[in-house]
């Protein structure tokens, strides 16, 4: 029976397979039925996102369901049936074939999908074993090209022995230097020919903690317990005779009392955040060492887990020189070497494997590191060009107008005279920020690089080699066309970089020049 269906399918998809299967030797294979569990879980996850966030809602709605079971139960059962049915269908239509140094995957129930991936294009083979696969010796094999993550080839359930064999075969089809080396070790060894480029001391990390919010390192780890913690803090404050509700009663208090309350509250929030941020920065960057061995950059850091990231210079896509407003005041810079994003999107936010960050370096150190990576770059002394002032006008129009309108409508009812002051102060504040952000925007180009500057209170510089561009886009609304302006965007493997509101002529020439450099030099982007 299975064979019948199989041949049915074969015929059904013959059209698709004909194109690429002149040399096929193997037949289409279906994966193990264990994948059913995978499909069910994937669907459920896709629908509900994360169970944790939904749990309270489910708990509350339980009462409603109990109240009116004749209305809700059929819905729930139908829903479950639908999920199971679509999992079975996804399983049924998932097939793969190995032939002639390439893997082909057919999938999709209504929307048919066909992927054809030659081994030589596969950058990384990742094997994951969910808990429910382990007893049966199956594994989920993900094949990454450096392309987009969502569309990657994934053999959902494959025998582990076979997977390992296939992995060897795939990696053998590769030039060995193209394989990524990202390792996490307890005791990273340093080889002989390494040159240390930069180290960070404790004081640098404290500065980094103050100027940059590294709290998320905690928040990421603490998320499951956040409710309990906030409860505990509430109880603890109450113990000391501090009544939170009382604190927020503004009636019968004078202006300065409210002001001190606001300031002390801000401090109460800011101080712990800053302290946590400093600790977070130390956890992430303790004993930071950036060294270079041949054309490999190696970053080692971390207090608890020593994290080692190795990146070949050729994999570097863009250099980001980042300064928050506090960094500007203290003269420190965060330098980022970013490489391809695609392979690392699934990793946790705390792991910074896709880029090398050098935290809070001084201007001189920063320039030294940039020059080391790209000797011909002129980031330090190139003249940046401003974008058209129409961007400023547009942003003022879009952001200031509605906000002032809203405030006006709220305040006008009560105090028509005070209103003018409130609105003026607010509008001025926003306009100042928008103007700052406009003044920061700039771009520059030389023979090899495109430079982009942006920011608001702080300032960020981006610098990328033109031949690394993956895709360009040229955007022009009807209004921009009248003014001979345009916006352009360069897509790199590390992400997109946009330049808004520049003259049409320059925009076109930047894009044409980039496309030509990419296509003519034929240089590899990694």
């Amino acid at each position, binding site marked *: 029976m299975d064979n019948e269906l199989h041949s049915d399918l074969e015929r059904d998809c013959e059209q698709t397979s004909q194109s690429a299967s002149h040399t096929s030797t193997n037949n289409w294979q279906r994966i193990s039925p264990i994948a059913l569990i995978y499909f069910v879980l994937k669907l459920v996850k896709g629908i509900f996102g994360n169970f944790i966030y939904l749990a309270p809602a489910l708990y509350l709605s339980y009462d409603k369901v109990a109240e009116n079971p004749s209305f809700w139960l059929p819905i729930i059962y139908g829903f479950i049936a639908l999920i199971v049915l679509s999992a079975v269908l996804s399983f049924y239509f998932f097939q793969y074939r190995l032939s002639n140094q390439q893997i082909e995957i057919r999938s999709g129930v209504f*929307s048919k*999908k066909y992927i054809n991936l030659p081994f030589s294009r596969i950058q990384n083979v990742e094997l994951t074993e969910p808990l429910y696969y382990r007893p049966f010796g199956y594994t989920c094999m993900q094949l990454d090209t450096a392309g987009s993550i969502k569309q990657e080839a994934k053999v959902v359930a494959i025998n582990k022995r076979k997977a390992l064999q296939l992995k060897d075969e795939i990696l053998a089809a590769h030039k060995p230097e193209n394989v990524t080396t990202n390792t996490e070790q307890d005791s990273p060894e340093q080889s002989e020919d390494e040159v240390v480029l930069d180290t960070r001391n404790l004081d640098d990390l404290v500065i980094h903690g103050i100027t940059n919010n590294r709290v998320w390192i905690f928040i990421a780890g603490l998320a499951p317990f956040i409710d309990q913690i906030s409860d505990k803090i509430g109880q603890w404050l109450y113990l000391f005779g501090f009544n939170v509700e009382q604190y927020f009663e503004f009636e019968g208090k004078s202006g300065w009392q409210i002001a001190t309350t606001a300031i002390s509250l801000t401090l109460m929030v800011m101080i712990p955040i800053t302290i946590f941020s400093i600790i977070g920065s130390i956890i992430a960057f303790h004993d930071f060492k950036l060294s270079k061995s041949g054309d490999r950059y190696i970053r080692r850091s971390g207090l608890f887990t020593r994290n080692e990231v190795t990146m070949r210079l050729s994999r570097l896509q863009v250099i980001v020189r980042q300064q928050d407003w506090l960094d500007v005041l203290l003269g420190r810079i965060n330098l980022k070497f970013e490489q391809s994003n695609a392979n690392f999107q699934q990793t946790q936010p705390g792991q910074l494997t896709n880029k090398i960050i050098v935290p809070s370096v001084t201007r001189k150190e920063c320039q030294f590191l940039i020059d080391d990576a790209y000797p011909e770059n002129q980031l330090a002394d190139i003249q940046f060009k401003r974008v058209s002032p129409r961007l400023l006008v547009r942003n003022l129009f879009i952001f200031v107008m509605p906000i002032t309108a809203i405030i006006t409508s709220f305040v006008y009812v009560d105090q028509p005279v005070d209103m003018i002051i409130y609105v003026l102060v607010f509008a001025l504040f926003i306009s100042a920020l928008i103007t700052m952000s406009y003044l920061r925007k700039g771009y520059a180009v030389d023979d090899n690089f495109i430079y982009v500057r942006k920011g608001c209170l702080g300032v960020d510089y981006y610098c990328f080699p033109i031949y690394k561009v993956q895709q360009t886009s*040229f955007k022009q609304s009807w209004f921009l066309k009248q003014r001979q302006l345009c916006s352009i965007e360069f897509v790199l493997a590390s992400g997109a970089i946009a330049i808004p509101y520049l003259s049409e002529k320059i925009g076109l020439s930047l894009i044409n020049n980039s496309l030509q450099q990419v296509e003519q030099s034929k240089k590899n982007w990694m």
Partner: protein
Amino acid sequence: MNPTISEIQEDFSNENIATNELISIANLEFSALSSKYFPTHRLVILITTLIVMTLVLAIQYQPWAVPPKELKVVLEVALWVIGSIGLLKYLYSYFADPKKKYALREQDISYQSGLIFRKTVSQPILRVQHVELKRGPVERKVGLASLQVFSAGGAMHTFEVPGLDYDNAENIRQYILSHKDLNQHG
């Protein structure tokens, strides 16, 4: 090897890209999408809207239980919102779809779209990672296909040309796959 390549090659406009003369994306020679795409796309919008509206109505008037009063109001509003979004989408696609065009050159493929906000995306072929043809049930029925081209730019920047005749899409796919720079350079 592939008999259809010569057909594609007639459309080329940047043959002399290697001779240092800069060819601009401002004067690309665009090809239109399949004429079947326009009515099909509008029909899909119409049918999708009607199906969603029918579902909402079905929940409202199902015979088994009386839905709570609040739910009724929500459903009614939802019905109007869905209806007007569908209508707007229909109108927009009526005017915007004919503006969708693609241009295939020796070294790159471009796609232009947008009614008021026009956008031209250009994808150099040697940066292509892999190519897919996407066909939904309607597309299969009428013989259309969407061409998806993946580069290292990530899922957000997938280059996609909708509404191509299946044979044409397959030809373009084959052309990209057999491009001489594709396999040497990642």
